[in-house]
């Protein structure tokens, strides 16, 4: 499947299913500099951010088998890996993760589901860019670790509802396929 609307999904899937190095190099080219910028914003100096960004991309390769295009866009998935790296390195603490949903017997991923989720992710990105300056800054600061949770107050204006129901749908199908 090639799809103009959903960048990086094909490459991530190629890394996952075919251990495709060329696709990985493209993912590296796009996300490496972003992960490095993100880590610098969270308080790392350039050298540490470089080292950690490299490790994040190595993790992307090593854990590619866990990538599920019906549950997360590549940016979302790579964000979670970068965030965990940040917690590990800056806070020096473990990150308890929710129990994994048990994997169903080869639930055939629904392409419409994949495209729907990816399109909503794109939409979310546009909505974020279109937010009033102040509000966008607040959200960015929260994700860069510049706000405490009690300061995270007003997050209205983001269309989280649709993406939430899409993920919920995927969860329900996953649970259903296990019965």
């Amino acid at each position, binding site marked *: 499947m090639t799809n103009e609307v959903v960048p990086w999904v094909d490459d991530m899937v190629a890394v996952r299913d075919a251990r495709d*190095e060329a696709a*990985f*190099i493209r993912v*590296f080219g796009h*996300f*490496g*500099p972003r*992960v490095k*910028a*993100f880590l*610098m*914003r969270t308080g790392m100096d350039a050298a540490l*951010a*470089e080292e950690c960004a*490299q*490790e994040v*991309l*190595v993790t992307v*390769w*090593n854990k590619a088998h866990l990538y599920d295009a019906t*549950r*997360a*866009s590549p*940016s*979302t*998935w*790579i*964000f*979670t890996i*970068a*965030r965990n790296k*940040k917690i590990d390195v800056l*806070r*020096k603490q*473990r*990150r*308890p993760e*929710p*129990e994994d949903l048990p994997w169903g017997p080869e639930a055939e991923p629904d392409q419409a589901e994949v495209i729907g989720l990816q399109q*909503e*992710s794109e939409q979310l*990105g546009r909505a*974020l*860019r279109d937010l009033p300056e102040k509000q966008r800054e607040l*959200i960015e600061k*929260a*994700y860069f670790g510049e706000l*405490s*949770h*009690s300061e*995270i107050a007003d997050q209205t204006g*983001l269309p*989280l509802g649709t*993406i*939430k*129901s899409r*993920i*919920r749908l995927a*969860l*329900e199908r996953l649970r259903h396929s296990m019965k």
Partner: protein
Amino acid sequence: MTVKHHLTDDLLMAYSAGDLPEAVNLIVATHISLCDECRAALGSYDAVGGAVLDTCASVEMAQNSLKSVLDMIHAQDSQVQDKPVSAMVQDDVLPAPLVDYVGGGLENVRWRSAGMGVKQAILPTSKHATARLLYIPAGTAIPDHGHHGLELTLVLKGAFQDEGGYFGRGDIEVASEDLNHTPVADISEDCICLAVTDAPLKFKGLVPRIAQPFLGI
């Protein structure tokens, strides 16, 4: 089983952003293990994180960066990752994140008496907040108290009731400065909770104040 009391949006967002102390992360992860609604909500907050990553500036990688990464993946590809304890232990009461912190199932919890039949076990997390498992005999009340900071209580077994409502397995109570409450374990069954505090509680009355050093809270 239907969860009725959920995480707040600011907690979900802060968990997604990675801004919470370890003990709070633990209770958030444990609730999500039992609650599809909050799992889906977390998915959408992670998507916001993805959008932030996508829209934030980029900083050029070092010249030899790609080569070192490719070297690393070639060197590591054959390595087998260690599996966490939770991959091996299934417990009816403790979801996987707690199995990891207890180092096994419910029978591995090292309970200590906290008086009045209540038992507790403090879990090893960073010092910024405290996570403890509480064992409250059926019908027993935790003394009336208020909070200096945040208190999160997640039911794992049985149920309790207080001014905030009725809390069964999977339900989480988010109590802040303004809540004074007296949680009472349901009469039908002993109650096991995970409780997280980011500041000491303040008890009313003399006897509970004496009990406070025992509870360590």
